[in-house]
């Protein structure tokens, strides 16, 4: 189908199709969503690969992310600078990993990054406490939070260093029957 679009060259669209789990149509739709977030910043013409990044505040305003308690961490994990400024490539990347076609391994990598608040490649107690507080909207008492974090580390920690490395996390995720369906945002 010869779409008379001028946003991307054909080679670019093919590359996007190869590297992500989206079709051409979906990539064009994603571009229009990206453009909607900041029409004056995002150019319509991407054929010469402009260097345009949208700040965190604009991205987390999207309806798909607005109410998600982990929205900041999600956007930060996919940004190169770690501050949450996403270029279009990173934007597509994010939704590609969160789509239903992404494999389990890939989702597990990014889930680990999202829950790792202090970005030290381990899920330590502080990371767990922050996760828990966002999950329950801070309704658990501090003792309960302490107890749950202890139990979580106890259950999942295989190498006994009192924090969860990626290996521990991946092993625990493999036993979750609905991880693929919960770690999914539809756009």
């Amino acid at each position, binding site marked *: 189908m010869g779409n008379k679009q001028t946003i991307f060259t054909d080679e670019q669209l093919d590359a996007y199709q190869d590297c992500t789990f989206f079709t051409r149509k979906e990539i064009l739709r994603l571009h229009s969503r990206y453009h909607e977030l900041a029409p004056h910043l995002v150019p319509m013409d991407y054929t010469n690969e402009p260097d345009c990044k949208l700040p965190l505040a604009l991205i987390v305003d999207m309806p798909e992310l607005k109410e998600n308690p982990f929205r900041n961490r999600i956007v930060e994990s996919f940004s190169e600078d770690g501050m949450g400024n996403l270029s279009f490539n990173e934007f597509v990347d994010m939704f590609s990993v969160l789509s239903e076609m992404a494999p389990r391994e890939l989702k597990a990598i990014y889930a680990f990054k999202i829950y790792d608040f202090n970005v030290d490649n381990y899920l330590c107690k502080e990371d767990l406490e922050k*996760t828990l507080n966002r999950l329950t909207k801070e309704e658990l008492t501090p003792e309960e939070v302490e107890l749950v974090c202890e139990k979580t580390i106890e259950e*999942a920690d295989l190498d006994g260093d009192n924090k969860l490395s990626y290996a521990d996390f991946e092993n*625990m995720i493999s036993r979750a029957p609905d991880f693929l369906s*919960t770690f999914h945002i539809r756009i």
Partner: protein
Amino acid sequence: MLLFMLLNVCTVGGSYFTQIELNMMTKSSDVVKNDIKNNLNPFNIFKTHKTSPLTLGLYSWNFGGGVQSYFLFLKFLVILNFVSFLLIGGFVLIPSIVFNSLGEPPKLESSGNCTIYEPNPQGLVVFYEYFLHLLSGTGFIEYSYMFYGYYDNTVVEDSSFSYNIPVAYLSTAVFYFAFCEYLLISRMGKATRVAVTTGGSDVSNYSLIVFTGWDFGCLGGKATKLKQRNIYYRLQVDLEEERLKKHAASLTMCKKVTLYSLRVLSFFVALGLVAAACYSIFEATKFSQDNSDKEGILGLIYEYLPSIVITAGNFLVPLLCDQLALLEKYSPSSTVIVALLRAVILRLASLCILLFTLWDQITCKGNQNDDECNECHYNYQEYPCWETRVGQEMYKLTLFDLLVNIALLVLVEFPRRMVVDNTSCKLSQWVGRQEFVVPSNVLGLVYGQTVVWTGALFCPLLPLLNTAKFVILFYCKKITLFYNCRPALRTFRSTSSSFFFLAVLLFGWIIALVVMIYSVAVMHPSQACGPFRSFDNMWQIVPNSTYYLPDVTKEFIFFIGSQAFSVPLSALSCVVMCYVIALASIHGRSVVMLKAQLKLVCLSFFFIYNQMFNSFSCLMQPICYP
């Protein structure tokens, strides 16, 4: 990429779940309701083996996995009943209709000792009585294809074609039971496989809730808040269990003794409540059978008295037992299990008592030499066609169950929602909207299905009636779920419970099987009606009809029935069973060993991975751009 190859080693367990997972999609609520109208149809399962993930996912997303398992269970029962009806219809109903229309319609004897049966009332019938007859299974319905009494002992023998209705009737009943058992067992096998591969819910509870509890697809503030509360409650349940365990461990000897004696006492009290319910059902059934000749609305109430008492008992006794549970102080999961067991025992016991009372009345307490049962081997005065009577009781139970459900929906749930939504007084807010309680609803389904299995021999069209009933129930429950119920904050664990409900269903099947075997092999069929009127028991038709078979087949069948065959067969099946049990235990052990090996492999590979992860962080971008 090398990373992915390394990662693939450790996701052996992961591939199991892609089949079981349902993709949950999120849409705005208007689109949701449109999708419900378009997609939710119990017969959709004929078109696609997997029911629409969107709609089932909606149940799961909104109301928790337990509700989803309820609707899946209901769909399974609809299909079971529909296929059973096709079986009965094809082999018993349609041949009967054809032979009756080609030959003569079945005639009733008007003379003889035990052979007079007059189901149709004499004289003019008032028009509203047709409706009463429809509800109570008497009158025009009693002598119709609905009940056993109308079927004849027609044997058609032509040069090219022969058909023996009594043999067809009996073999269809036997095959129906075997078919239901096969479906049940295969479904239980699937449920067990799921339960085993997910490794039980106790193992990594907290970590799974924390890391996979959040649904990233949640849209909207309301849904988010709901999900947060849901996770909070799940964690609370587990924390409560921990607290109770600690508390139980710290009890002094004296307190332990008090607690255990309280538990024993409440066990006996619960048993006493169940016994009281059973006794009242016994009395109600006797009263109803003794006063079965009353007319009009009062007659209808007397007819439905056993069903009313059973329903009232099934409602009151669990309520009282819940109060008892406060004394017992079990952990939350144990409380749920104990309450479920009590409800199950109550329901099945009430059905058993009803059947026992009927047997009592029909066979004069099993005493053939009693005055009333001397002549015809059963109480002919009260029950000229006892099979139809039993069929009528099951028919009434099924109908009453449906009527009560519809009445509850219209008279209780809708008004409750109207009141709660439109008034703002404290009482209505405290009561709140209805919560969809999964266990009691599933037990209701199991009970209804057991009643149908028990009554299928005496009321061949009961599976069709049950299909219609379950379809109506499906839509009623769907409506009540989405319009009247609030999402449950405490969700029900569905993986282990689906196995439990199937086990209870199997137990109900066993009860129905016992009833069928007893009726076929021991009880004397009515001499005034039915396809077995000239035999001493229903099973006799099978040896009789083998006389017409060629010699070789006869010898073969007698050989199979003889001891020379059955003893070696049972010895062989024991051997096969031992082998299968040994195989299962070996597999169990190898699963445990493989899991331990998997851990070791993961550790060693990811030790290397962690080094790479830390040193070469740019390798983490698996997606490349030109």
